[in-house]
């Protein structure tokens, strides 16, 4: 039998992550976000990380004390962020990233969302670079290589390879084959493709080999190396319904007073 990909805890699954790693964090608006792995990596303490993600915070389905990339930022573990949102979209929002970025403590590379996804897909598909029409004529394209194809201008973008991908999936078998549920898929398969090592937090009990029909696999286990089952709450983090989030946030505010 091949070596099992199943790890007993999040701490064990991230224990060897070295300083300076480039790590992709999957998920979109909390769905598919590796909430438990954010916590484990904060406790593990690796420094000078380059963190790739659509954004740096959670969403309305997580309370204020849930782990996000903001934990790593505030713990001074992050050197650079590559994302499609490096500033808040509403004047009322405050991001930890903004605070550290404005002080010059963190570098931020802003990338259009489709370009971000495609740069990782390219890395995972062995393609070093590609041309895209997104961002042509904008500040992001200033001083960069463009080329005309069929009369239209395109911008050269390079593949984005990762050392590690941290993602969340619905089901996994012991071979690492994954299934996602609904919009949980988002960036997750692409980050796994781009990474040398993919660590997955899995929602359902990990299945024996063969339990997922080959036709139903969303991401082949070839891209997946470490699996950890998310324990039930409160030990493990799970997205919450809006009333549960509101109740917990109220509790947190009460505790602060």
């Amino acid at each position, binding site marked *: 039998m091949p070596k099992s990909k199943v790890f007993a805890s999040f701490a064990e699954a991230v224990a060897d992550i070295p300083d300076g790693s480039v790590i992709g964090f999957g998920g979109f608006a909390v769905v598919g976000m590796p909430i438990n792995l954010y916590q484990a990596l904060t406790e593990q303490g690796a420094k000078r990380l380059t963190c790739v993600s659509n954004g740096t915070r959670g969403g309305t389905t997580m309370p204020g004390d849930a782990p996000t990339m903001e934990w790593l930022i505030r713990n001074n573990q992050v050197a650079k962020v590559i994302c499609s949102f490096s500033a808040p979209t509403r004047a009322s929002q405050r991001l930890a990233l903004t605070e550290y970025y404005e002080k010059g403590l963190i570098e931020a590379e802003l*990338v259009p969302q489709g370009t971000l*996804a495609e740069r990782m897909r390219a890395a995972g598909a062995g393609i070093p670079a590609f041309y895209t029409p997104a961002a042509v004529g904008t500040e992001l394209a200033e001083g960069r290589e463009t080329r005309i194809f069929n009369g239209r201008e395109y911008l050269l973008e390079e593949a984005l390879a990762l050392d590690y991908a941290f993602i969340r999936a619905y089901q996994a078998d012991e071979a690492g084959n994954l299934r996602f549920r609904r919009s949980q898929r988002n960036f997750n398969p692409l980050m796994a493709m781009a990474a040398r090592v993919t660590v997955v937090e899995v929602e359902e009990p990990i299945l024996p080999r063969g339990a997922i029909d080959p036709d139903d696999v969303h991401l082949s286990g070839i891209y997946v190396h470490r699996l950890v089952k998310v324990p039930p709450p409160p030990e493990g983090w799970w997205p919450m319904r809006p009333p549960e989030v509101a109740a917990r946030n109220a509790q947190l505010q009460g505790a602060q007073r």
Partner: protein
Amino acid sequence: MSDAKGLTRQQMCDRLAMEFEDGWMVNLGIGIPTLCSNCDFGDKAIVFHSENGVVGYGALAASGKEDMHLVNAGGQHVTMNPGSAIVHHADAFGMIRSGRIDVTVLGAYEVAENGDFANWKMAGQKGGGIGGAMDLAACAKHVFVAMEQTTRRGAPRLVERCAIPVTAKGVVDLVVTNYGLFEITPEGMALKEIAPGISIDEVKSTTGCNLIVPKEVPPVRLRG
């Protein structure tokens, strides 16, 4: 919600949604444009596409009935219509780049008379929030914008040239504000329809570029 004069945000989105044609694939930006999915399309089959790979989402989920695995690009819990599908992010953007999105409706800070628009970086801000806007603006067949006529301080959002960094150049077709419906034409910005209770002078004095005003400007068509 807003004390602005003229159209409500829902009326603004209702008007843009009337332009959607049968069979169109539609992508809605966060903010005001999300209200376009609340409209009644009658016999028209409209498919809503979301950057996170939901192709064919439906109405917002009722409170308590949210599927914790399903959100649209705005992070709202939605439902899925029969015939919908899930793809990953690269495929969702592949659909965008390859021209399969008929229209994107986006919010904006400024729209210029040449069809440039700006919606990712406020003046003086470090960094920005692009999301999928640059991919969508560059590649959707039509780009519609829904925004207020002026900033909170009364500065025009319809301008000669964008003062803040643009999202894409020369792509906007149609703009709705609380004051009316505007079309970007080869000759410049044209007032097509005017909001009830708003005068032509009010529109002109709050517009920062030359405005083409026909002799007869009909009122904004509203949902019956």
